[in-house]
């Protein structure tokens, strides 16, 4: 199996722009070419797009707009973890030798049809994500004594981190008090507990280890991958633990021969504040029920280890782009090129991206 590295990346400014999805994807591809030395269109064997947009044939369209005639081109849709799913597909093409260089571009519009899973009748009429997030939050509070203040610190930290992210969607600093007094959506969820849908795109370039040095002096290897789907319906979930993330993390750590304590920096899927707490626990970064204190400590010590780009809450959540933007940030971190967001000399990074009330998760380990 060929080793696979991330050798290039680009992120466009997340916004509320009303632009066609292919234009958004094209903007990220154009930027990736500008930022990647020695890259020519005919280097690229595979183009994978990731989005929940209803437009068809997007990968060939974006390829043609960019002058690329790839061997492999297709779209990947898996709701909120479409981006990492597309990356895993691209990884597999390179690992198997079917492709040597692959471009993965993810994008979403602010009005994406991927925000609500209509199929899930077990949610009854409560199909919007705020309802499952409220159930997770209430159950975590009940079992572990998690407080609204614990939750608010997640949002305060990620909004603060996003201030140094030039592509974040309307970055703004919030105090814990402002977050706890923001608009009440349900008894257990306030407006600033939520990530916001937006328009945005990100792209990454993957290459086999032997070709990687053509494009960068610091290739970042994808050394571990774990993916798990436990169901499509929300109500089968345990409400205080994310089984799909736990199982995906187990596989990713095993493949990369790493463990939670070895991770220096991570981008995790904070669709809601409760998700960051649960994911930290299920990745094994802290014990069950202790993530509130863990995040409080990060906040008080201005430690950017978790969600340095601001996560979904700080940076915005253009579904198909989110997983790619997470990989892009961890690659930058491991190359020491993250500017004001940079954490101290990280060697091993992690990406966790999930879908549909946490029923499906992807965990990636990256190493410089």
């Amino acid at each position: 199996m060929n080793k696979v590295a991330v050798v290039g990346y680009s992120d466009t400014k997340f916004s509320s722009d009303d632009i066609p999805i292919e234009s958004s994807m094209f903007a990220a591809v154009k930027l990736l070419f500008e930022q990647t030395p020695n890259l020519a269109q005919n280097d690229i064997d595979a183009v994978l797009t990731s989005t929940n947009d209803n437009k068809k044939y997007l990968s060939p369209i974006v390829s043609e707009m960019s002058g690329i005639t790839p061997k492999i081109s297709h779209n990947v849709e898996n709701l909120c973890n479409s981006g990492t799913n597309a990356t895993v597909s691209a990884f597999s093409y390179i690992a198997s030798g079917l492709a040597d260089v692959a471009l993965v571009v993810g994008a979403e519009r602010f009005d994406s049809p991927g925000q609500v899973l209509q199929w899930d009748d077990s949610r009854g009429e409560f199909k919007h994500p705020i309802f499952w997030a409220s159930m997770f939050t209430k159950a975590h509070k009940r079992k572990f004594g998690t407080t609204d203040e614990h939750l608010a610190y997640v949002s305060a930290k990620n909004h603060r981190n996003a201030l140094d992210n030039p592509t974040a969607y309307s970055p703004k600093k919030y105090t814990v008090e402002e977050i706890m007094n923001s608009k009440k959506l349900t008894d257990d969820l306030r407006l600033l507990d939520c990530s916001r849908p937006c328009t945005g795109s990100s792209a990454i370039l993957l290459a086999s280890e032997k070709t990687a040095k053509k494009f960068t002096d610091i290739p970042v290897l994808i050394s571990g991958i774990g993916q798990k789907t436990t169901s499509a319906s929300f109500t089968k979930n345990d409400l205080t633990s994310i089984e799909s993330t736990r199982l995906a993390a187990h596989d990713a750590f095993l493949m990369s021969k790493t463990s939670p304590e070895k991770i220096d920096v991570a981008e995790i899927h904070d669709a809601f504040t409760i998700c960051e707490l649960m994911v930290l626990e299920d990745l094994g970064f802290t014990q069950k029920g202790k993530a509130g204190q863990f995040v409080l400590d990060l906040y008080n010590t201005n430690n950017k280890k978790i969600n340095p780009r601001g996560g979904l809450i700080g940076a915005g959540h253009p579904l198909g782009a989110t997983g790619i933007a997470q990989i892009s940030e961890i690659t930058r971190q491991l190359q020491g090129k993250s500017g004001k967001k940079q954490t101290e000399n990280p060697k091993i990074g992690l990406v966790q991206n999930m879908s549909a009330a946490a029923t499906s998760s992807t965990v990636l380990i990256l190493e410089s």
Partner: protein
Amino acid sequence: MSIFEAELKNGRFVIPECPKCQKVIWPPNESCTQCFGNTVWRTVNDPGILVEYSSKDGKMFCIAEFENSIRIMGALYCDKTPIIGQKIKISSCGFDKSPKFTFTQE
């Protein structure tokens, strides 16, 4: 419209069961997830239990569980503060674009 949705529209909450595997299939489907055989439909055993709840604009919503396996979200109407694990019963059900359930304390 599926059998599940059509029955709900008439105010009946029916669930699919595989006669061969003696297994309730949830979320509802016309085939068994184990043997792929056809399921048969029957009414659910009421009452269920309260798994979790929250509220929006003063109106409670919850996850209810029936027969130790079927979990569904609906509106919750209570006189007293709800207790997790307490028995709740279906006071109405219907279908209008989505399934609509209301539950009350037994």
